[in-house]
């Protein structure tokens, strides 16, 4: 097992490359997945390079230019300007930063504990460990995440950081539920029994045998969830419990702009379309992954 000669390394590398091109072939067969991937790339690119790609980067915060306020979309301001004269396109692109950060941080924090809980409960199926873990997740799943997140933000000061914590606390049970289903069905598979027979430790079996077999479902769910978390974050901001002005946040921009309907429609519709765009990207990508990896559980 230890003979890691360059030859074997070489062939492993070849195999991986081969594998990757096969996966890519399957993925690119579905043009909607490509659209999704493109949207996600565009949004991430814009978010990272926001200060350089936006026309008026100084408009991101508390900037005031009343002589330019409420301009409809035109050549200089593609998405128009808002009540205090800020360029909406600029603020939307900076808003992508908050949306993405929210999505990635929440899923990044919520997935690992949920996965571990699900793996452990699934492996020890029908024991007291299973009962305790899964009943706790049932409690969390008994209330819509948005409402519990609101209840949590109620006792904390309203800002982006606490909103992220609130959504994270609500999100792990979904992963526990998903992984539990997979782990408890894998528990009877031959490769798990074989590992048990050879005397592998429980930790080894859970993390090295069962986890790798759940990865594709987990990964698909994470992609889809980024979109859902972005919606929840935007909803919290829309209600006034998320990002606070003058932070450029899409949900806050939509709710501020709603005051100016119907005449200055662009103030609210442009950020709204931006939210749909970003969520659409992650959803198309997630659906593509689900089809490609043949994941049924998510």
């Amino acid at each position, binding site marked *: 097992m230890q003979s890691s000669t360059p030859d074997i390394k070489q062939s492993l590398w070849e195999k991986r490359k081969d594998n990757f091109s096969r996966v890519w072939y399957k993925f690119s067969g579905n043009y909607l997945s490509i659209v999704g991937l493109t949207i996600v790339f565009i949004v991430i690119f814009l978010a990272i390079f926001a200060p350089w790609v936006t026309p008026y980067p100084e408009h991101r915060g508390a900037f005031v230019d009343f002589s330019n306020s409420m301009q409809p979309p035109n050549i200089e301001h593609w998405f128009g300007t808002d009540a205090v004269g800020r360029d909406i396109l600029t603020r939307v692109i900076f808003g992508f930063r908050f949306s993405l950060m929210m999505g990635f941080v929440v899923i990044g924090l919520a997935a690992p504990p949920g996965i571990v809980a699900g793996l452990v409960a699934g492996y020890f199926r029908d024991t007291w460990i299973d009962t305790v873990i899964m009943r706790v997740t049932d*409690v969390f799943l008994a209330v819509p995440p*948005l409402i519990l997140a*609101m209840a949590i933000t109620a006792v*904390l000061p309203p800002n982006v950081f606490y909103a992220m914590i609130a959504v994270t606390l609500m999100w792990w049970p979904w992963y526990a539920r998903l992984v539990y289903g997979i782990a408890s069905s894998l528990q009877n598979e031959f490769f798990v029994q074989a590992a048990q027979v050879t005397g592998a430790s429980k930790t080894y079996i859970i993390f090295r045998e069962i986890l790798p077999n759940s990865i594709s479902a987990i990964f698909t769910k994470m992609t889809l969830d980024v979109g859902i978390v972005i919606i929840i974050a935007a909803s919290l901001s*829309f209600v006034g419990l998320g990002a606070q002005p003058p932070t450029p946040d899409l949900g806050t921009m939509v709710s501020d702009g709603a005051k100016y309907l119907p005449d200055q429609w662009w103030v609210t*519709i442009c950020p*709204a379309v931006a*939210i749909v765009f970003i969520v659409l990207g992650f*959803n198309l990508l997630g659906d593509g992954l689900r089809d490609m990896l043949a994941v049924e559980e998510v």
Partner: protein
Amino acid sequence: MKLSTFILRRLALSIVVLLGLSLLIFVISRVVPGDPVRLALGARAPQEVVDKISAEMHLDKPYPIQYVMWLKGVVQGDFGTSLYTRRSVSQDIRAFLPATLELAIYSGIMMTFFGILLGVLSVQNKNSWVDNIVRVISYLGVVTPAFIFAIIFVLLFGFYLDAFPISGRLSPGIEAPPFITGMITIDSLITGNFRAFFNALTHLFLPALSLAMAGLSQQARIARSSMSDNLQKDYILAHRAYGIPERKIFFKYLLKPSLIPTVSILGLDFAALLSNAFLVELVFNWPGISRYGVNAILRKDLNAVAAVVIILGITFVVVNIVVDVVVAYLDPRIRMRRDRSSAI
């Protein structure tokens, strides 16, 4: 498992879940924020007043005792006094909950009806332009938050077409029916006030539709895929071989088994309805429990927040039990396993 055993087991589990939820809410609303009375009265209130109100509301006792006392009240329908309005929270809830339930019920009806209708249309005209339009609508429905639908509908149907009212439950000048159930459409029917009934319906249309869009899209997708799966099955082929008319096959033999998956996600969809009601009620100025909840949250009125979350949790749990029982009745295979895939 027999159906009665299944229901009993399900009820027992729900009680555990609700107890857990009450503990969670208690921890969130009492333990986390420090002194709620101080929070409500502000930093400049004299200490004696704070102490007096704390004693009145039993907030000076240790947490476990507080929890038991609070839970006792909740079971009897008493959620304590609002720290902000100093009124009984239960009274407020009774005033605001019917509006939300009415909205959610109409929305649920629209969601189920239009969702299944779109699914049927889609399968009947598979791969035609109808099918493609339905697929685009159902995709957009899933990725668009409810409040964006609300705003778009307000703009389109309210301002541009001027077809539907966009605020409140009744137009000014229309006399509201007496408070019987609190749901205006039902109360007005009971009292025979048809003018109020139709007026309330037009007020319900846009908020209910914006709220229904997400679930509607999901229902359409699921109905479409389960029907096109079942269409490939042998029993359909057998019916065709017998020469049974295509229409009858479709509505009598194909639709019923295909609707089981859509019924089984109704519970989750109803949860989504309740949580999205927060957003839609804000846009349409709807005097429901969600708007009450948001105001309670913004004012840190913790008794009210706890009550709203518990009430919504109970509603959600009850709906889920009903859905589970209906599905178990429709499809005996479900009784054997109890895992549903996730949604919002």
